[in-house]
């Protein structure tokens, strides 16, 4: 199972979230949105030399990410035809349900994620209500929260797999 991409899939999700976070910060700092009283809105993005470099780096990261992601999925599906990663399902790809041991492990990991959200969401809502946080950082916070769930899932599975001889 060492080369099973389902184990590292949460890390790919986290990387995708970090790329989205980069664009959110870019739009948040370089973009302006004007809303008109008669309806509609105008979006303007002004790029300084720094933000131009940043956007180029981000676009390169997206390109590289997509190539590596698709390549690794293809490699995984070729190596493990019984446990293909496919986008034709709503079930998260990182679930390991090969047999009852792995079903149990997935249940443990999802329980941890549930506990994490049960605490993190109300805390985040309270922080957003009490502190003057900009819309950009609110979205950034939500993205980091989402990345956290993947980290918890990944860490639980990794810890278990390292105990497998």
């Amino acid at each position, binding site marked *: *199972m060492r080369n099973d991409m389902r184990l590292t899939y949460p890390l790919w999700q986290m990387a995708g979230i970090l790329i989205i976070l980069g664009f959110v910060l870019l739009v948040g700092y370089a973009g302006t949105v004007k809303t008109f009283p008669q309806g509609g809105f105008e979006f303007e993005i002004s790029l300084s030399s720094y933000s131009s470099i940043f956007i180029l780096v981000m676009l390169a990261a997206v390109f590289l990410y997509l190539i590596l992601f698709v390549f690794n999925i293809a490699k995984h599906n070729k190596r493990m035809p019984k446990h293909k990663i496919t986008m034709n399902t709503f079930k998260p790809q990182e679930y390991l349900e*090969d*047999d*009852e*041991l*792995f079903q*149990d492990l997935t249940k443990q990991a999802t329980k941890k994620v549930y506990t994490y959200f049960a605490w993190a969401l109300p805390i985040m809502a309270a922080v957003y209500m009490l502190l003057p946080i900009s819309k950009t950082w609110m979205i950034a916070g939500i993205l980091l929260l989402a990345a956290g769930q993947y980290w918890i899932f990944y860490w639980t599975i990794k810890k278990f797999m390292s105990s*497998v*001889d």
Partner: protein
Amino acid sequence: MLKNRLKELRARYSFTQIELAKQVGVTRQTIGFIEKGEFSPSVTLSLKLAKALDCDINEIFWLEGEIDNEE
């Protein structure tokens, strides 16, 4: 806590973990974790293991303290 002598019975038939796992339709890791006592299998899997090892389910699994009490 569930105790077992799966490793001992598996050795009796000279089965490897992979061979036994294939017979009962699970992964090698599952057999390993059951042997170490870190995973309690379902009734279905326990019955499959008993069948594969040609013995009674009570010969493979018992509750901690049960044998001591009987003795």
